[in-house]
């Protein structure tokens, strides 16, 4: 945890310490945004986007207020990231806006199990391996079972399930 905090501290500290050109190669590559920047500034949003969205999520769901600022669907009006070929990527890709920092700081969010990770109109079904949308990734589960079987075989144990236990 301390290490993570240090890492984040470094990351944010670096923002003020260095100008863009001098950034360390460790700095995550955040895809460029379109539209007007946030009036509160990048630094504020980097640190508070999760709280802002949680607040506004409840405003929308519970109170029916649909003119909130931190709207998750709204993010992709300005933060749609594209791959090398200019195709807009889904959360499945590590080029996705939300993953650019999260992969770096080892944060994982489940938002895109339900929410679109692209602007309306982009065909997300083109992304065959939409594993992030599944509670258990089919590939991973199979691999896990394979590992378990291998382990049991290796240690020459048998799984005994006794009635009444």
């Amino acid at each position, binding site marked *: 945890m301390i290490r993570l905090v240090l890492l984040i501290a470094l990351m944010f500290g670096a923002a003020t310490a260095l100008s863009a050109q001098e950034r360390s190669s460790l700095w995550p590559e955040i895809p460029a945004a379109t539209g007007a920047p946030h009036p509160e500034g990048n630094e504020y949003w980097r640190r508070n986007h999760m709280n802002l969205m949680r607040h506004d999520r409840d405003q929308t769901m519970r109170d029916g207020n649909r003119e909130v*600022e931190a709207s998750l669907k709204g993010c992709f009006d300005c933060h749609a990231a594209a791959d090398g070929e200019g195709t807009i990527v889904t959360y499945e890709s590590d080029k996705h806006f939300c993953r650019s920092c999260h992969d770096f700081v080892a944060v994982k969010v489940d938002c895109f199990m339900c929410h679109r990770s692209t602007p309306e109109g982009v065909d997300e079904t083109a992304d065959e391996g939409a594993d992030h949308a599944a*509670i258990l990734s089919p590939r991973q589960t199979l691999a896990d079972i394979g590992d378990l079987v291998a382990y049991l075989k290796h240690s020459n144990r048998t799984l005994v399930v006794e009635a009444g236990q």
Partner: protein
Amino acid sequence: MTGNNSTTRPKGAEFSRRDFLRSGAAVATATLAPGVTLIAFGGSQAQARADAGKRWGLLIDAGRCDPDCSACVTACSDENGWKDTGHPETDAQWIRKVTLKNKFTGHVSSAPVMCQHCEEPPCVDVCPTGASFKRVDGIVLVDKHTCIGCRYCMMACPFSARSFIHEPVNNQKTHAPRGQGTVESCTLCVHRVDNGGTPACVEACAATGNEAIIFGDLNDPTSDIAKRLAEYPTSSLRPDLALNPGVRYSNL
């Protein structure tokens, strides 16, 4: 800001309005990009909001509902993005057509059944997390952010109106997020209602010319729906349960 500050985050479960004001975010309305208007807190209150004075409801006239028509079902599916995944026993269904036949007279009538938006919703009573809730304007919803997929609400619902999502989902509608492991049901197209619109099923039914479903505020005596309820005999499904549903039927 210094690196040290990055460890301080707003305390408490929620980021309060006061925190927001303190943060200097209390800017007024600003147009950010074509079609993107930003209204921050502290300034203007949004006009579109759940209103405690209202009670949204539907009146379904089975006498006008064509047994061979399923325009309302198709419209709901298109609007909210639920569809056939090849698992008919478990696929989500927010609205379905039900056909009733009187055994003695042979008279057949048909009507759509969806979440009945009860005043006393059993699904809300049983929910262990508070995810199943009723808005102040009578719309019963699942807050999927707090839904743990236990499905007690599905057991409690006398109308079998709720579905559980078994399969991973992608390519959702922007306004209707849905994903594996949570429960969902008719939202009365809350995203449209909040913007002054009518539910997709009502619009589609009107477009067929049948006009079997009307939508409106049951509390407003001048609304079309309240006038009709006052004028003609109507019933609700399972009146014995005294749930006072917001969805009413006539000529059933």
